[in-house]
């Protein structure tokens, strides 16, 4: 390969400066919606995306369900009810503000996306008469058919529709540009955010963006514990290049984070250990309601939360007796009794009762429309399913009326993992936010997976739009600021240093990522101890001081991957520092210590916050209910929006 010349012009030495009102960092779901909101407020908007905005991000290829759209006309629950249930389910360790926004504005955004060209209802009447379809609105619901707050959507149409809307609104899109750092007023950590630097992933060109407000819309961190040098694209659930650059540059800039001590045992992908998401036998999420059978064709019964067996398929979609509603979907792993939905009997019980392994997912006996909506609509519209699952399985002869698909793990994990194989999943940590989705850094707003306790598509779209709105208000009241030349110079030196080294005695991005992941598995695994965490930190520091100066990249693409690993190293340190800051175990954070002192537990029942100021780490705390009264605070901060929605009605 090495004798093929790089096909793109090399522009290592050139620099482009761009000024705008609102700068959107990341072009996934949240970024697109942020840019749309800001542009609609009359601001000039620049959107920077590492991939190709039309299909970039975790939701680029699609999404099959939109959770918690509590204000849709069929919903029987309120935004307050769902948000409080989400908070309670995690003993308060959840983002009350962002999830309230998700519940409150989800349906507004769906209508918005429909206007842009996305499909949110069964316009072709393919599912007329189905139990999950509302005949008046043609909206289709998933999970709890009685309370109707999670919608089935044709999400493969969404990103291209948003992309068209961005262009219609005149948003300037910079695809294939990796944002490398936040620019701060006077170059000071913890100061005001006044822009960002970037590098073109094909040409290596340097960019200096100035914005009056910036909106951080990048992914959650990944590849911290999980890495395969051979198949890096299969390491994690989110896209290969979505590894948490935003968290890293935020940490360097002095942004405040919380819940970064939380990690969960790996559930997805995990360096190729599991099978393709939504592609193996299971009965969760996209496949919810599917029958499971054992290897002799015997059906595994569903039961309600009280253990009553459910005899009809339709009962799988109803709350239990005396239950208002149940929750299913993205990150409701071990629900509390209050919101626990129907489920197949436990794996252990089935083995005890003599059911034979392996189990299989069986669509064949479902009512026709239930089968058709799972195989053909959900599988097809959910991310990464249209081609790799739906088309490929069909082409290979899979027939949902005849065949059953094997299950591999003991649940929807579709594999079993080691305890030290961890992931930031199921409401992971992120930037701390206030009621404007602003951060502690003036001028910096945050949305989607950058937020702490983020989860799904609807959360990304709604918080994106909300942050875009509030960022635009800030931009309208502020001016552009002169950048600090020293900060820019330092950043250029940092990002281009690896191309000046020689390949024969240097270290590449894969070798470094593998070392970081192994270090994190060893010293920051399932059970935390100060002595190990401290050694882990030393190892990571060593990589920073001794290895980074000896890295090499052949071309701008490899340099992008290498800069990502520098960010992974940065975030790993943030995680270890956050683990050191929490002294006692906290079950809702999946955080377990082997060296805790019992008296710490009560004292630590709060969000522990962490940030850097003048290169020193500052630990703080916020009460779990810091967001106050949801409804009142939302209304106080969104008077214009509420008024405009009323006018439109």
């Amino acid at each position, binding site marked *: 390969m090495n004798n093929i010349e790089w*096909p793109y012009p090399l522009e290592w030495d050139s620099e482009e400066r761009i000024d705008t009102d609102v700068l959107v960092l990341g072009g996934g779901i949240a970024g697109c919606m942020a840019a749309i909101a800001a542009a609609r407020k009359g601001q000039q908007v620049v959107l920077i995306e590492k991939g*190709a905005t039309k*299909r970039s991000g975790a939701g680029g290829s699609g999404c099959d369900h939109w959770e918690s759209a509590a204000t849709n006309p069929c919903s029987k629950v309120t935004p307050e009810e769902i948000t409080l249930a989400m908070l309670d389910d995690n003993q308060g360790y959840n983002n009350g503000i962002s999830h309230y926004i998700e519940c409150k504005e989800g349906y507004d955004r769906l209508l918005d996306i429909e206007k842009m060209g996305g499909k949110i209802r069964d316009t072709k009447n393919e599912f007329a008469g189905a139990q999950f379809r509302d005949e008046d609105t043609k909206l289709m619901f998933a999970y709890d058919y009685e309370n109707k707050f999670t919608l089935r959507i044709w999400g493969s149409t969404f990103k291209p529709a948003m992309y068209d809307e961005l262009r219609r609104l005149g948003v300037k899109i910079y695809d294939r540009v990796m944002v490398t750092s936040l620019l701060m007023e006077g170059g000071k950590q913890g100061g005001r955010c006044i822009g960002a630097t970037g590098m073109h992933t094909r040409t290596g060109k340097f960019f200096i963006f100035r914005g009056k407000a910036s909106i951080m819309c990048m992914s959650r961190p990944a590849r911290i514990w999980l890495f395969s040098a051979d198949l890096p*694209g*299969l390491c994690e659930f989110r896209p290969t*290049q979505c590894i948490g650059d935003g968290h890293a540059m935020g940490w360097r800039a002095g942004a405040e984070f919380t819940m970064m001590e939380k990690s969960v045992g790996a559930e997805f992908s995990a360096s190729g250990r599991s099978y*393709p998401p939504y592609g193996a036998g299971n009965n969760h999420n996209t496949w919810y309601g599917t029958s499971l059978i054992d290897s002799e*064709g015997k059906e595994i019964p569903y039961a309600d939360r009280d253990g009553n067996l459910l005899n009809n398929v339709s009962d799988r979609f109803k709350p239990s007796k005396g239950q208002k509603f149940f929750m299913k979907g993205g990150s409701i792993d071990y629900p509390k009794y209050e919101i626990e939905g129907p489920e197949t009997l436990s794996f252990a019980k089935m083995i005890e009762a003599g059911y034979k392994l392996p189990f299989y997912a069986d669509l064949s006996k479902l009512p026709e429309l239930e089968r058709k909506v799972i195989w053909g609509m959900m599988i097809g519209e959910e991310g990464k399913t249209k*081609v790799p699952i739906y088309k490929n399985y069909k082409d290979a002869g*899979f027939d949902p009326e005849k065949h059953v698909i094997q299950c591999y793990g003991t649940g929807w994990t579709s594999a079993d993992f080691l305890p030290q194989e961890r992931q930031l999943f199921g409401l992971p940590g992120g930037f701390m936010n206030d009621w404007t989705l602003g951060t502690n850094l003036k001028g910096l707003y945050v949305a989607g997976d950058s937020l702490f306790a983020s989860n799904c598509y609807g959360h990304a779209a709604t918080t994106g739009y909300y942050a875009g709105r509030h960022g635009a208000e800030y931009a309208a009241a502020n001016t552009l600021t002169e950048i600090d030349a020293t900060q820019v110079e330092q950043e250029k030196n940092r990002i281009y240093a690896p191309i000046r080294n020689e390949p024969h005695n240097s270290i590449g991005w894969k070798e470094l990522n593998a070392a970081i992941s192994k270090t994190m598995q060893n010293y920051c695994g399932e059970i935390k101890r100060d002595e190990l965490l401290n050694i882990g930190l030393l190892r990571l520091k060593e990589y920073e001081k001794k290895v980074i100066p000896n890295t090499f990249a052949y071309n701008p693409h490899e340099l992008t991957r290498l800069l990502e690993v520098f960010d992974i190293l940065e975030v790993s340190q943030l995680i270890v520092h956050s683990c050191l800051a929490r002294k006692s175990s906290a079950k809702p954070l999946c955080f377990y210590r082997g060296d805790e002192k019992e008296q710490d537990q009560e004292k630590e029942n709060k969000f522990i916050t962490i940030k850097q100021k003048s290169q020193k780490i500052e630990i703080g705390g916020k009460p779990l209910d810091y967001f106050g009264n949801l409804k009142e605070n939302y209304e106080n901060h969104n008077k214009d929006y509420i008024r405009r929605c009323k006018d439109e009605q």
Partner: protein
Amino acid sequence: MNNDKKCYLGEMPSANPIIYHKEKCIGCNRCVNICQVDLFIPNPEKGKPPIVLYPGECWYCGCCVMECPIEGAITLRHPLMNQVHWVEKDKLIKNKEEK
């Protein structure tokens, strides 16, 4: 088979996620431009299928196939270890009866 009594430097990758069907691909490079991971580079020869430069980085989202204007020009293939098994349900029941 290679009959010319020579062999060449090379290493087969751990996965071969994208297969171009040369007779169908028109070399329009839409797949190159849509891929968020940026696996591909355009073929130096115009009109020919792109080169899959970084196959290991593939995320298997299928957007290259979704964007392709020619049906069947690209096949996305999961690595062998990730190919899922299915069986005919009737066979499971028959197996049980035979036991």
